[in-house]
C-alpha cells in the first residue's frame, strides 16, 4: 500500500514536472514568436511609412506633369469636351440613324467609296466574312437598331 502510494506520488510529481517544463518552454516559444511578430509589425509599419512617402513623391503632380509631357501626348481637357448632363447633348436631326457601335473595329477594309453614305447603301453584296453589316441582315441586332431609329423618328 505504502509502496503503491509512493509510486503514484512519484509518478504525479514526474508528470507535473514534465508538464510544467513543457509548458514553460512552450510559453517561452510563444513569447518569442509574439516578439518576432511585433518586431515584424513595427518593421512593416516603418516600411509602409517609407512606401507612402515614396508614393507621394512619385505621384507628386510636378513629377507626373513632367512625365506626361515627356511620354504622353495628353493635353488638359477643355470645357467643351466635358458633358455635364445628358440633356446637354443636342438632338439629332430627324430620320437620322443611330450609329452602330465600334464602327472602327468591325471595318477591316474599305467597302464603300468615300463619300457614299455608309448606312443607306443596300446590302446587295452579301456581308463578307468578319464584317458585320448594319442593314437589317443581323437578326436581333437589327431589331434593336430599327427600334432605336423608330423611336428617334417619332420623338422629333
Amino acid at each position: 500500500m505504502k509502496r503503491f502510494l509512493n509510486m503514484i506520488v512519484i509518478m504525479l510529481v514526474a508528470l507535473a514536472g514534465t508538464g510544467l517544463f513543457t509548458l514553460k518552454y512552450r510559453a517561452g516559444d510563444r513569447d518569442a514568436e509574439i516578439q518576432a511578430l511585433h518586431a515584424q509589425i513595427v518593421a512593416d509599419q516603418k516600411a509602409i511609412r517609407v512606401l507612402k512617402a515614396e508614393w507621394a513623391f512619385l505621384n507628386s503632380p510636378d513629377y507626373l506633369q513632367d512625365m506626361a509631357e515627356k511620354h504622353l501626348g495628353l493635353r488638359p481637357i477643355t470645357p467643351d469636351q466635358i458633358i455635364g448632363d445628358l440633356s446637354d447633348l443636342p438632338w439629332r436631326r430627324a430620320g437620322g440613324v443611330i450609329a452602330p457601335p465600334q464602327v472602327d473595329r468591325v471595318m477591316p477594309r474599305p467597302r464603300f467609296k468615300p463619300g457614299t453614305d455608309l448606312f443607306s447603301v443596300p446590302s446587295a453584296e452579301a456581308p463578307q466574312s468578319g464584317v458585320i453589316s448594319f442593314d437589317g441582315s443581323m437578326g436581333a441586332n437589327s431589331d434593336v437598331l430599327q427600334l432605336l431609329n423608330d423611336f428617334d423618328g417619332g420623338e422629333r
Partner: protein
Amino acid sequence: MKLSPRLDIADGMNAKLEMTRNRLMVVIFLFAAAFVFLGVRTLDLGLLQQVREVGSGRTGYATVMPARADIVDRNGVVLATNLDTASLHANPREILDANEAARLLVRVLPDLSEADLKAKLSSSAQFVWIKRKLTPRQKWKVNALGLPGLHFRIEEERIYPQGKMAAHVLGHVDVDGKGIAGVERFFDQRLSDPEFAQKPLQLSIDSRIQHALADEMMDTVERFSAKGAAGVVMDVNTGEVLAMVSLPDYDPNRAGTAIPDARFNRASKGVYELGSIFKTFTLAMALDGGVVDMNSSYDATYPIRVGRFQIRDDHPKSRVMSVPEIFTYSSNIGVAQMALDVGGEAQQEFLGQLGLLRAPVLELEEVGYPIYPDRWRDINTMTISYGHGIAVSPLQVASGMAAMVNGGSLIPATLIKNPDGAHADERARGRRIISDATSTQVNSLLRAAVKLGTGSNADVPGYRVGGKTGTAEKSAVGGYKEDALISSFVGVFPMDAPRYLVLVAFDEPKGIAATYNFASAGWVAAPAVGRVVGRIAPLLGVEPGNEEVNGFQQVSLLVEPD
C-alpha cells in the same frame, strides 16, 4: 530487571514517538495535498482552461510612434512625414588607414572635404560625426566601401516628399525637429504630441490645385520676369484655403539653404497695395448702403485734382459713366466720388468689418499687419476706394472677396479641412457684411468685368468666370513708381453660384512684346487666372455650362461697349 527501566523509558518514548509520527504524517499529508493541488492546477491551467493573456510588461500591440505626426492634404496625400534616416559617424581608433578612408568616403559623399575628413579620422577621439542624414543610396554606398570603424546612427528626419509644393503653408522644422515656420510651427505642439502621433494633421490644401496654381504662376513669373508672386485658391462658402502659393519658393527639405526672400510668405505675410480689386468693396459698400444703385452714374470726364494729387483713369472714357461701367472699365474717378458719397467713416468701418484693418486670422504665424493711414482724410477715402494707400495681404483680400460673392458673409479663412457636411453651417457661422441681394449684384458686376471689361483674358468658356483686375503702382519714397507694378486679379467661378475664388498678384512684371509691353493686370494676372480656372475647375467638379439667366444680362445692358 535491568531492562525494565529501559522499557519504561521505551514505553514513555513510544508514546512520544507516536505523537511525532502523527505530526509528521499530518505535515506530509499537507505537503502532499499542496503538491497535488499545484499539480492539478498546473495541468488545469496548461491543458484545460482557456488562458487569458497576462500582460508580461508589454501592453497592446507594438506600433511605430513617429516623433512627429504626418501632415496630409485634404485627400490624404502625404505632405510631410517622419522617416528613419541614417547618420554616419566613425570611431577613429578603429580606422586602419585614415588617408585611405578619407579618400574613399569623399568619392561616395562628394560634398565632404577630404582634408577635413583626414583630420577627423586621424584624431584620437572615439567618436566623430561624418555626415548627418544620408540618403538610402548614400548609406548603401558607404556600406559597400566595407571600411571598419564607420557606424550608422538611425535618426528620425522630417521629409517633405512633394518637394517645393506648398512650402510656405507647411513651413519646415529645425535640426531638432521643432517646427519653425508655417503650420509646422503653428501646430508644433499638436504635431509633436505623442497622443496624436498616429493621427495625421489634415490640411484644407488640395495638392493638385496647389500644383496647378503654382505651375501657372511660375510660368507667368518667368514670362514677365516678375520679382515674385502670391496666389490663393479659396472655397468661398467654407473659407477653406485650397491652395496658397508664394513665389519664389523653396524646398523645405533643404530650408537651411533657402534665401530669406524665398522663405517669405507673400500670400499671408506680405502686404501690398492691390489696386482696383478694392473697387469691388467700394461698390458693394455703396450698393449695400443704398448710396447708389445700378442706374446711378458719375461724371468721369475729367481727372479729379486734390491738392497736388491727381486721380486719373487708366482706361479713360472721358464721359459720364453708369455704375456698372465704372466697375467694368475700372474708373478711379467714378469710384473715388462714390466713396466720398459713402463717407470715410463708413468706409473705414466697412473695411474693418471685412477684417482688412487687422492682421489676417489663419493657422500661420506668418501673417502681415495691414498698413493704412492713421488719419482717414478725404484723399485717403478716395485712394483707398481703388486700392491705393492701403496695403493688405492677398489672403485678406481673398477672404474679403469671398464674403462679397458668397451671399455676404465673412467666413474666416482656414488651412484645416472642414469635416464633410459642415458646409451648411459655415455661412451661419460667418459674419454678415452685405445683404444677399447686394452680393448677387456684385456677382453680376464681377461677371460683367470679365465678359465686357478689363478682365476679359480671364474668361474660360463654360466656367462663367467673374473677377476684377487690380493694377497698382508700387509706392516708393515720395510717390509712386510708374514702371513698377503689382498686377493682380481675383477670379470667382462659377458666377451663377460662386464656389471658388482664385487670387493672384505679381510683383513687378515687365511687359513683353506679346502683350504690347503692357504689364497691367488684364495682361498678366487675368490670363493666369483663366488658365488656373481651366485646370482646376474639372478637378473641383465644376461642370461647364451655359450662362444662366441672372443679373449679368441686366448689368450688361447698362455697359456701353467701346
